[in-house]
């Protein structure tokens, strides 16, 4: 079983479009959406939820007013600015338990928090694991780990050939969690100054993991010069660009219809996406 995680650094370059295209063309894959705080893959793959699980991701401090003598020690030790006037602001509380450990009156409880939900679903392309982080909740990295673990278990049990994972933007904790244990990072970029800048940073991060790295340039024809610059950069790093997808309004229409572009259209972008899928599967088999 091989895992492909689709990343980008910069948001909005087309990760979900690429992931959905791979999902639609893989014959034998488990699908995972690890962009847990802005999940969109469901819009194209239309999962039917089979099982729902609670994600108890963190603890938050709570001050018991009856026991509190307002000594203020908790406020002094809290480094996250989460305690003010003997009340905990749950948005800032990182669940570190320092106040709980230090309170001389034992007036602080650590309360488990329901930080989100995750789901095992069926799609016409295979089983899918996805999640939704609660509003203003943290610990997205931990929820990503939960999603990935479930996807792996399903893949192992059902002897699936691939796990195809839609990753989050950025380079922080959920991205690090998404990369861990993956066989290939497929990085989708766009020919813009920001696209290249962010590609450089996510490549540096991915190089710390034991993953094969491939790059796709989306909407490459909107700025041919920048696309060339990105290709040159990748060559200099020894990284293969396995696809260049042209700008094509058919993609927007496919997304608006809620269909993976490779199923909706046979236009130039859909053809390029098919090619990316073929090369990704070939690439990850030998990774």
């Amino acid at each position, binding site marked *: 079983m091989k895992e492909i995680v689709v990343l980008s650094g910069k948001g909005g370059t087309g990760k979900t479009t690429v992931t959905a295209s791979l999902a639609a063309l893989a014959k034998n894959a488990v699908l995972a959406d690890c962009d847990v705080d*802005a999940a969109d893959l469901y819009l194209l793959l239309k999962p039917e939820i089979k099982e729902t699980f609670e994600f108890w991701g963190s603890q938050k401090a709570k001050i018991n007013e009856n026991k509190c003598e307002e000594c203020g020690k908790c406020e002094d*030790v809290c480094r996250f600015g989460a305690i003010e006037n003997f009340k905990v602001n749950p948005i800032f509380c990182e669940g570190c338990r320092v106040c709980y*450990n230090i309170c001389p009156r034992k007036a602080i409880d650590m309360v488990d928090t329901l930080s989100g939900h995750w789901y095992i679903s069926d799609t016409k392309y295979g089983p899918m694991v996805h999640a939704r*982080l609660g509003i*203003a909740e943290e610990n997205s990295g931990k929820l990503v780990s939960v999603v990935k673990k479930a996807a792996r278990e399903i893949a192992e049990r059902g002897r699936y050939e691939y796990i195809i994972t839609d990753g989050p*933007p950025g380079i*922080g904790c959920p991205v690090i969690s998404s990369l861990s244990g993956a066989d290939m990072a497929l990085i989708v970029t766009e020919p813009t100054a920001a696209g290249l800048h962010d590609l450089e*940073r996510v490549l540096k991060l991915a190089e710390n993991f034991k993953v094969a790295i491939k790059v796709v340039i989306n909407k490459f024809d909107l700025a041919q010069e920048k696309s060339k610059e990105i290709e040159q950069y990748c060559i200099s790093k020894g990284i293969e660009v396995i696809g260049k997808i042209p700008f094509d309004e058919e993609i*927007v229409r496919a997304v608006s219809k809620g269909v993976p572009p490779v199923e909706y259209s046979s236009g130039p972008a859909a053809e390029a996406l098919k090619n990316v899928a073929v090369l990704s599967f070939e690439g990850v088999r030998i990774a």
Partner: protein
Amino acid sequence: MIVAIASGKGGTGKTTIAVNLALSLKDKMQVALLDCDVEEPNAHLFLLPEFKEKEPVTLPVPAIDQEKCTQCGICTRACAYHALARVGKRVLVFEELCHGCGGCGLLCPAGAITEIHKEIGFVKRGTARGIEFIQGTMNIGTALAPPVIRKVKSRIPKDKLTIIDSPPGTSCPMISAVYGADYCVLVTEPTPFGLSDLKLAVEVVRELGIPFGVVINRADMGDGEVEKYLQEQSIPLLMKIPFDRRYAACYARGGLLVEEFPELKSSFDTLWKAIERRVEA
């Protein structure tokens, strides 16, 4: 006044709005632009600031004096992040898991824990075309963006209009960036992805009690569902930017829309008036 530019979905045009809004106001008032997308900061690619100062952002992480350590296990049990573990006769620190809460040092009965300042990023300050420019950058391989974002925000100048370019998403980095803003501009695109993530971002800013409005970018490349949602929810639509290959090309090379396209200059002026009216109300 602090105006945060945010979005659930990435790549909708946050940086474009932040940079061009700052530029269109700089002759009328003192403006500061804070790039709080510390994982992938991009505003500097457009404004090309001249940086004058650079300061590190550090996280206090424990260092164990193995001579003094009695392996009592108090610190390893107290750490909520499993950043401390007893291995054989030593206590090991896993710095990448540490949130820097300081709990282990406070609780160690043997006085064996001191703190070292681990660099997790840096804040740079300078100016660009008369705009005060403050940028946070998280080191690659670091997991935690919020401490870097908090450091950037600790540098918010008084008596200037501060525009914050936020990271995408709806979890802790985005919340750290928009918290405390007087107004939030949510940037979206008229696609099912844009709408789905906009709804999440709306829930966050409502939870935080920040007044907000929406900008629709590439407004003619999709469907009418976002506008329908805004009407149903009585959310102000502040501005629409059409898709235009010339705009896309300008963005691609790091160009500035309000300088190249006069029609957009007046759109940004109108956007500012809409924001100002709502903050004063």
